């Protein structure tokens, strides 16, 4: 099978024999932003040269894309910690980038901000089933007045959803699906996620002019982060609970695959339940486009000291990275800086993803309140992204991210570290759409033997 990953900088392709789990050949070409199909044609032509014609003709060719900012979505809900958060989770789980998350009543300025952020789609939630109707209907009304010509997925109060659709259907392509939070404390993001992915495949790809890609591949299936999430699901069926950290130039994504429920009777869970497959995206943590934001977070002094660089060099290098985000690091100084930034980006992204404990005293003794997921029992953490694919990932750096003692932050304790050195996760996610068992074999073969 062939997988093509159209990134914002590079278009990468690999051909794999899923029966043996081996990579047959790879190709890479700069992404051609005006018409991404040129880049796709270039990598596929290169692959074709190494594969026997009858095999090439019959093998499925699938693609995912994060070019042009990936899938951009606005999430709308009612209460920030309830339906708005559930809507955001559904959007992230579909592999989209959240360009705005809105609570309570939308204002005209909010809708203009959604338009200015070039959102591809809106997820409109709000109210439990049988609960609040006014906000969903009011927000549908405000959106209708603007007619943004993008699809709207309605995943709010079941009892008001059809009415909201009627309001919107004059000016929008609408899709009705199940409520992201049918009851207080019940999260139901799967149907909305599936709906978003279907619309991406059937509508957004064409709206972007990406349909030309389909002259070369069978299907542009999903946004790249969704492919990584899919690979994680396949891996979890085989290897159990785990985490994937995807360190990129602009963002650092963390995907966890576990229930994350409290593990002791003295711990009480608070807040919205978490999905088994949870994705968080940190837009201020990355090695290239977000290098400046990361440095501000860590502190220039700290980063310079850790990378053994002068502050003057560091400032100059950051300006260089800003100018040419696609250039690879070659000198010793550049590589040391990447290493220090990678450690900080992964550490902070993991901390934000993990749940935490708060102490509370009751007349019957001390109790702990848990918010978010408990990741302490996770045994495997997979690191992926260009940095790790270039073989720069140092095992001891990544081991150092995890505590060996119990702590209030519920991070994994001494997990095995796995590097996706072949950068195969997105490809495995694509393969699983056609052959789940084959994709599992491929993942096992490619990731096995790299753990501690």
């Amino acid at each position, binding site marked *: 099978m062939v997988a093509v990953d159209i990134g914002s900088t590079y278009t990468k392709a690999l051909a794999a024999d899923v029966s043996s789990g081996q990579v047959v050949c790879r190709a890479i070409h700069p992404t051609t932003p005006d018409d991404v199909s040129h880049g796709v044609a270039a990598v596929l032509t290169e692959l074709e040269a190494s594969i026997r014609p009858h095999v090439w003709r019959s093998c499925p060719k699938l693609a995912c894309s994060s070019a042009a900012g990936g899938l951009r979505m606005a999430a709308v809900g009612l209460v920030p910690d309830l339906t708005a958060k559930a809507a955001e989770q559904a959007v992230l789980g579909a592999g989209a980038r959240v360009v705005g998350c809105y609570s309570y009543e939308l204002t005209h300025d909010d809708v203009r901000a959604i338009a200015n952020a070039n959102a591809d789609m809106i997820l409109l939630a709000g*109210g439990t*089933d*049988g*609960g*609040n109707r006014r906000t969903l209907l009011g927000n549908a009304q405000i959106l209708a007045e603007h007619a943004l010509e993008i699809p709207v997925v309605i995943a709010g109060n079941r009892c008001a959803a059809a009415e909201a659709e009627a309001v919107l259907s004059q000016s929008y392509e609408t899709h009705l699906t199940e409520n992201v939070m049918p*009851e*207080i404390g019940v999260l139901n993001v799967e149907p909305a996620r599936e709906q978003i992915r279907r619309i991406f495949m059937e509508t957004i790809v064409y709206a972007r002019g990406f349909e030309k890609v389909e002259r070369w591949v069978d299907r542009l299936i999903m946004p790249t982060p969704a492919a990584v999430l899919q690979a994680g699901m396949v891996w979890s069926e085989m290897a159990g609970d785990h985490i994937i950290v995807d360190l990129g130039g602009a963002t650092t994504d963390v995907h966890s695959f576990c229930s994350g429920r409290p593990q002791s009777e003295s711990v009480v869970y608070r807040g919205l339940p978490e999905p088994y497959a949870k994705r968080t995206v940190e837009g201020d943590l990355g090695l290239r486009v977000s290098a400046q934001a990361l440095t501000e977070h860590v502190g220039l002094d700290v980063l310079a000291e850790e990378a053994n660089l002068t502050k003057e060099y560091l400032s100059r290098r950051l300006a260089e990275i800003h100018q040419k985000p696609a250039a690879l690091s070659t000198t010793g100084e550049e590589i040391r800086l990447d290493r220090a930034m990678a450690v900080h980006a992964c550490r902070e992204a993991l901390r934000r993803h993990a749940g935490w404990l708060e102490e509370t005293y009751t007349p019957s003794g001390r109790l702990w*309140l848990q918010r978010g997921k408990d990741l302490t029992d996770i045994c495997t953490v997979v690191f992926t992204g260009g940095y790790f694919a270039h073989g720069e990932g140092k095992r001891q750096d990544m081991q150092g991210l995890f505590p060996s003692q119990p702590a209030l932050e519920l991070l994994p304790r001494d997990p095995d570290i796995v590097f996706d050195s072949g950068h195969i996760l997105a490809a495995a996610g694509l393969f699983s759409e056609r052959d789940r068992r084959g994709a599992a074999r491929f993942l096992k073969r490619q990731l096995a033997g790299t753990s501690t």
Partner: protein
Amino acid sequence: MAEYTLILGVIGSDVHAVGNKVLEVALEEAGFHVVNLGVLVSQQEFIEAAIETDADAILVTSLYGHGEIDCRGLKDALIEAGLDDVLLYIGGYLVIGSQRWEDVEDKFRAMGFDRVYPPGTMVEDFLPQLRADLARQRGESH
């Protein structure tokens, strides 16, 4: 779907779970849609749940004597959230020591609670009042 939605929960750092569960079952059997937030519920959680579910009443219980501190400002917060017409009930061991029940009731009424119930109140004791209050509230808001 049931006609009325009730939010139920034990406020503050209170972990008394049994009475809460008994109330949930009894109120569901009486035909209400009960959203039970369980124990250790903060004011904010009551308010957020009432917004999303468009609740008709909030039933707070407190069994460890700190009810006065935990409930301070709850009614004001409900008004701020646009939930001034949601009925607010409380019941349980609301204060420490042997204070006169009438004084306790006055205190909680002054804090904005529509009904205040002493320890040992049975569901059938307050159901008629709850139904009457809900019917009146709906009549007024229409």
